[in-house]
């Protein structure tokens, strides 16, 4: 668990070396100032120890230039710390395109993860080394947080929101993950292990223990029919609702003239609050499925709609904003 220096965990992700370097940089600055102040105080404490009971000190005039100096120098150093930290953070918040997506659901007091092929895990997460992995996080009850110290990453899991986080594992092994947002009685045992495997082993694991787990796309397609989505969202675009072909990831033109990207959050909102964003040219007819779909079903429908990306987009009836639209 501990590296050579037992003060930081193993470095097992693309972020870890950056975070550790950042930490050392800030530690260096802090040690410098802390030592400086300490040495000065100790030195003065002894050098200017009172010589006689009625001795007073020598008043020293205010020095605005000195004050400016010790405001500006710390400010410059602060900006360096801020800047470097910001770069790492922006990288962390900008998920790359080609990620392996795993859906993670937190609930009191366990974690459920669903691999791209539908394989489910509980309190475990298997990922391949060297791939960009994106976790799509949802909560079924209170706020949780998915934290992997060896990767140096965490993200809150907030009910009513989707949050995403990404990392690229760089070293095979088994690493703790913890829940790190207090969530009630068993918050402290709500953790598990991330297993980073060589790609070959990961592929084998993925298919080997598959054993009848439903592919979410298939499950989503079933739901799409069961819940009667298909009656309005005709593929050819002639229904009362826009076709969903090619919709995922596209810019959608809304009735109020704005556009929005059709991502997971948009799909989720369309299911739960369908009239929050009406597609241009359509009526607010869609009923809400709040309370009728579990998180897993929402994820399945999302996976199915994603799979329609490659389907032919009808000329009319998809609500996709024309590409000349400048946004």
């Amino acid at each position, binding site marked *: 668990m501990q590296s050579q220096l037992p003060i930081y965990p193993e470095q097992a992700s693309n972020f870890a070396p950056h975070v550790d370097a950042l930490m050392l940089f800030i530690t260096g600055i802090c040690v410098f100032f802390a030592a400086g102040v300490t040495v000065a105080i100790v030195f003065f404490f002894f050098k200017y120890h009172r010589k006689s009971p009625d001795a007073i000190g020598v008043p020293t005039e205010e020095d605005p230039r000195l004050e400016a100096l010790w405001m500006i120098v710390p400010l410059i150093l602060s900006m360096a710390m801020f800047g470097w930290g910001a770069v790492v953070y922006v990288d962390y918040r900008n998920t790359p395109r080609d990620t392996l997506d795993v859906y993670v659901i937190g609930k009191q007091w366990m974690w459920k993860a669903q691999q791209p092929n539908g394989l489910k895990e509980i309190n475990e997460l298997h990922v391949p080394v060297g791939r960009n992995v994106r976790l799509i996080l949802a909560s079924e009850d209170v706020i949780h947080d998915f934290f992997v110290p060896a990767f140096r990453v965490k993200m809150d899991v907030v009910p009513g929101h989707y949050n995403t986080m990404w990392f690229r594992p760089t070293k095979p092994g088994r690493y703790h993950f913890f829940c790190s947002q207090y969530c009630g009685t068993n918050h402290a045992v709500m953790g598990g292990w991330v297993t980073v495997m060589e790609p070959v082993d990961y592929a084998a694991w993925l298919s080997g223990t598959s054993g009848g787990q439903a592919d979410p796309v298939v499950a989503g397609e079933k739901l799409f029919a069961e819940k009667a989505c298909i009656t309005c969202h005709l593929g050819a675009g002639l229904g009362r609702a826009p076709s969903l072909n090619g919709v995922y990831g596209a810019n959608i033109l809304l009735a109020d003239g704005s556009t929005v990207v059709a991502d997971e959050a948009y799909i989720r909102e369309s299911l739960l*609050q369908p*009239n929050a964003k009406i597609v241009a040219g359509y009526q*607010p*007819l869609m*009923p*809400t499925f*709040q309370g009728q779909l579990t998180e897993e079903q929402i994820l399945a429908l999302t996976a199915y709609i994603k799979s329609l990306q490659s389907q032919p987009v009808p000329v009319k009836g998809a609500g996709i904003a024309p590409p000349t639209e400048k946004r």
Partner: protein
Amino acid sequence: MHRTGELYGHFETLEQQKESATLGMWIFLVTEVLFFGGLFLTYTINRRAFSTAFGIGSNTLDITLGAGNTVVLIMSSLTMAMAVWSAQVGKKKLVSIFLIATLGLGTVFLGVKAIEYKQKYDHHLIPGHGFDMRYRSAHPTASDDLKELAREKQEVQTAIKSDPDINYHGQLYFSLYFGMTGLHALHMIVGAGLLLWLIKGSFVGRYTPQYNTPVEIVGLYWHFVDIVWIYLFPLLYLIDRHH
């Protein structure tokens, strides 16, 4: 606490005492702005998110009573200001008269609020168990205008189509309605208590051109409570009223 006349012993002069009392009241009002501010922020965020429900909710409020109450409160601020002026120019009898008028108008306001709250109770619009925005239009009473009720029913039906969770979101609107007007009414009741105390003092001629600080600072408080209402009225009563 040691006191000579109106001067409390820890102050050096009446001037210092007046300055302190006035500054104290202003600072207290600043804290009140922050206090109500949290509610206004919550209102703003929720209204943006659930504008349909807020519109329906707002339309169930009686705009005549609300507007009337607004006029009543503004007039009470006028009588309050007149009370302060009367004290400053030494017209002691007028001080009592204007204070009593202010209290009277404030009481009218609270009475009308009580009537409105009772209406909400009858129409099942109190948040919590039993809340239902469709109730009123489905249960007409003898005194109801049937045409208006039909229109309300139509509006609620339309709203439900675009926001099936209208009863959840409507409860948010009404929670804010009761929370904000309730907090405001609480402040008015405190104000009424302060007015009673002032009236008592005015009967013995306590407030003179040399000493009228209590009237002035209660006046500040009263004006503040009035201003809060002037914001509450349009925000709560006048959403989506353009028909």
